[in-house]
């Protein structure tokens, strides 16, 4: 089983345009034998979208999941700066509509106090948080998480399942930051297919804490599948990374 833990529907605002944008992603995923795509909206792709934009983005993901119930599972994107609206959106999407995870991007760094209520709710609901993080040489965005920020969140909320996005963006330092916190895994999405990174993640975290994800449409399925198939791994490690870890974290929310 292959599960893409990290994908976005596309760049369009309008649902029908998004449906058209998403079609080639489904085709590419199928080409590589990907069984499930965990899809999260990034609303209007702005750092801190308004609540209406957040809801509209999640509605699009719900629609795509309804279009493709055997292939797509939704993650609920929220903006922690609007804490009450974020919690209400989690109620709507995760509790009522069975979305399987919570996506956090660049509205707040992971160690921001406003993320705490979301982390607590995720733990209660037993759904993972997919948190963007990166170490950028030129400096991160004002509210863009570093892996150290993710480690701080993980330390405070050991019951919350956190998947830190972007292995190559985290690099050696990011892996060292999160290694002590068993509630943090890393996805291999985003960045270029830099050789050795997947093996390094397995050495640092163990194969049970590394997940396949693409960041489609920003990155291609082929390049990302190639990171796993090109890495020196045992069959067991490869299967964990490609899908078994994700299935464990999604705890029964796959399919009907």
């Amino acid at each position, binding site marked *: 089983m292959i599960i893409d833990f990290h994908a976005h529907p596309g760049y369009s605002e309008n649902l029908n345009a998004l449906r058209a944008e998403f079609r080639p992603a489904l085709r*590419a995923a199928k*080409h590589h034998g990907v069984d499930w795509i965990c899809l999260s909206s990034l609303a209007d792709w702005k750092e801190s979208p308004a609540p209406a934009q957040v809801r509209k983005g999640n509605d699009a993901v719900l629609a795509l999941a309804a279009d493709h119930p055997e292939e797509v599972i939704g993650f609920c994107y929220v903006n922690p700066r609007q804490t009450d609206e974020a919690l209400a959106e989690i109620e709507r999407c995760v509790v009522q509509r069975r979305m399987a995870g919570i996506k956090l991007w660049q509205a707040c760094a992971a160690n921001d106090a406003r993320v705490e209520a979301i982390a607590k709710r995720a733990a209660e609901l037993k759904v993972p948080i997919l948190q963007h993080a990166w170490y950028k040489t*030129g400096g991160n965005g004002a509210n863009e998480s570093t892996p150290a920020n993710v480690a701080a969140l993980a330390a405070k909320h050991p019951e919350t399942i956190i998947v830190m996005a972007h292995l190559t963006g985290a690099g050696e330092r990011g892996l060292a930051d999160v290694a002590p916190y068993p509630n943090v895994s890393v996805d291999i999405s985003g960045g*270029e*297919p830099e*050789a*050795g990174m997947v093996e390094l993640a397995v050495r640092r975290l163990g194969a049970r804490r590394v997940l396949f994800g693409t960041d489609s449409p*920003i990155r*291609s399925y082929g*390049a990302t599948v190639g990171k796993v198939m090109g890495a020196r791994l045992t069959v067991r490690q490869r299967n964990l990374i490609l899908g078994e870890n994700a299935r464990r974290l999604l705890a029964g929310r796959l399919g009907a």
Partner: protein
Amino acid sequence: MSVDAAAYVGAWPFRPIEGTVADLAGVMRANRVRQAVVSPLDGFFYADPSPANRRLLRRLAGRRRIWGAPIISLRMADWRAQLQALAEKRQVRAVRLAPAFHGYKVAKAQEAAELAAKHGLTVVVQMRVEDERHHPPFVKLPGVALGDVVALAAAAPRARVVASAARLGEVLGDAEHIRQLKNLWLDVSHLDGLECVKQARDAVGARRLVFATCWPFFYARSAVLKVDEAELSARDKAGIMMGNAEAAFGLG
């Protein structure tokens, strides 16, 4: 079967990456790559890449399907003599220029492109290797503009020019100019994004693209699967995987 237009041997100084010729041969076999055009990674970091080139050619000796693309710095006063000496080596099919690493403008490479053409060598212009966001803090190196490489190919129409490591957005941005040049090829090593190879093919035409892995810096498998996923016609795919590189590097 394919030709890898951009692979390397040697060491990358900022991460434990080391490519040996034996490992390269294994990666080629595993990915059905029949021929490769190979440069020395160390050469990017030497003011005079010659020692790295000599090491490369020693290591490649006796390898029938692995061609050398030694690196030349145009800031070395004797670059013309270096180029001429390399042209006499049977195994050398191209020279790789790294204007960002060695510190000169791509426009300065016109004479080198023409001289290379006179000697039957292809000129590869390295646009980048590592993602600019991951450069070590003491070496922040902006990439080379694809437009400058396009201008070089236009200014030296007899030269064969390969732009190495362009990103998809750059290719789409310069597509109109690229389409018009029959002496310019783009390697696919750094193309990424959903349907990247298909998008690049639609923008510049299948004949302008050459398969390349950027191994050992990248997983070679990523390049193979990226092209594979595009579900191109047999003719387009054969061109991108092999035929175009044979034309670009004059391989039989």
